[in-house]
């Protein structure tokens, strides 16, 4: 499970460059992962917009993440009856093994919140997508300890910004150069 994960720090310009290359190579769709009130998936064919690379909550567990699939794939939400009544819809890899999960992370106040790419699936399409993304991340970003670092995110680290999984995490766990 852990071997198909890549963790990175990237901001708007880093992610634009990354996704620019990836979206040139493959026609993709991006569907928000999570637990929702409706079964509507509302996928998009590109993540290029002004919000890319800006974290909204300052904690990677509360930032948006996307299931990424080839454009022709049909993704399925899981119906989750609620104990309190009603139904929610879960969008994850559980019923969609042909996907990877991509969380961009990004800038939040004087911090950069970590992003990640991963899959728990052994489906061929998923592994191909994982390889496509991870190859480009490794080509464009600098490896620093257990993370890959986008160019601008690296400059922000040099200026004293925190690179962290959450603004509430103790600073000892932030990414730092030795």
């Amino acid at each position, binding site marked *: *499970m*852990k071997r*198909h*994960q890549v*963790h990175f720090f990237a901001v708007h310009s880093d992610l634009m460059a990354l996704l620019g290359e990836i979206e040139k190579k493959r026609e993709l769709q991006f569907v928000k*992962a*999570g*637990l929702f009130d409706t079964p509507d998936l509302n996928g998009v064919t590109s993540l290029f917009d002004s919000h890319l690379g800006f974290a909204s909550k300052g*904690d*990677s*567990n*509360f930032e948006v*993440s996307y299931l990424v699939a080839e454009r022709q794939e049909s993704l399925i939400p899981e119906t*989750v*009856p*609620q*104990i*309190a009544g009603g139904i*929610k819809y*879960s969008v*994850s*890899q*559980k019923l969609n093994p042909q996907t990877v*999960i991509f969380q961009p992370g990004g800038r939040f106040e004087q911090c950069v919140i970590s992003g*990640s790419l*991963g*899959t*728990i699936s052994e489906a061929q399409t998923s592994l191909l997508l994982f390889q496509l993304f991870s190859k480009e991340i490794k080509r464009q970003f600098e490896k*620093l*300890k*257990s*993370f890959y670092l986008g160019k601008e995110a690296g400059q922000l680290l040099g200026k004293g910004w925190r*690179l962290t*999984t*959450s603004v*509430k*995490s*103790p600073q*000892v*766990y*932030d*990414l*730092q150069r*030795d």
Partner: protein
Amino acid sequence: MGRQAATLRGLNPNETYIGGAETAVGSSAGRIEPPAVKGQLTPLQIVIQRAEENANNVESSGSPSARTGKLGKQSTRDQIVDIAGKLKQHGWQIVGGGGELPEEYLPGPRGRRRGSSYPDITATKDGNTLRVNTIDTRADGVTPSTREANNAARIRSQKPDDTVILVPKPK
């Protein structure tokens, strides 16, 4: 499994520790909020309920090995998926692990791989984050092994504001 369920049944769901201070399982005191709405369960109650249901299933169908076929990894994976399913039914969103997504990565000091953690389940609800780890125990079926206790302590130090619940792996 029966002992596991009995042990879990003996808990006060609003307490954050299972066992004594040295064998603490859970988050720092007071992190698990009591139900905000009548009829709503705390995360710990949800996990206990799931563990009890699992225990009952195993008891009614013979030995765990007869049920799962493959002991160890598969039974633990099933347990993790079960707990995640229960959390979702209570409105928790799975954001890592749970057989649905890659496990959350908590880096070690200064972003190193050394000292990092991968909780089995990470879930969020109403601004709160809950992590569940399945653990190996000592012979008493309750006390975490030294390794698991260290792992739990590390996760608590990495995310001191959040809740950690440890659940014994199926025997």
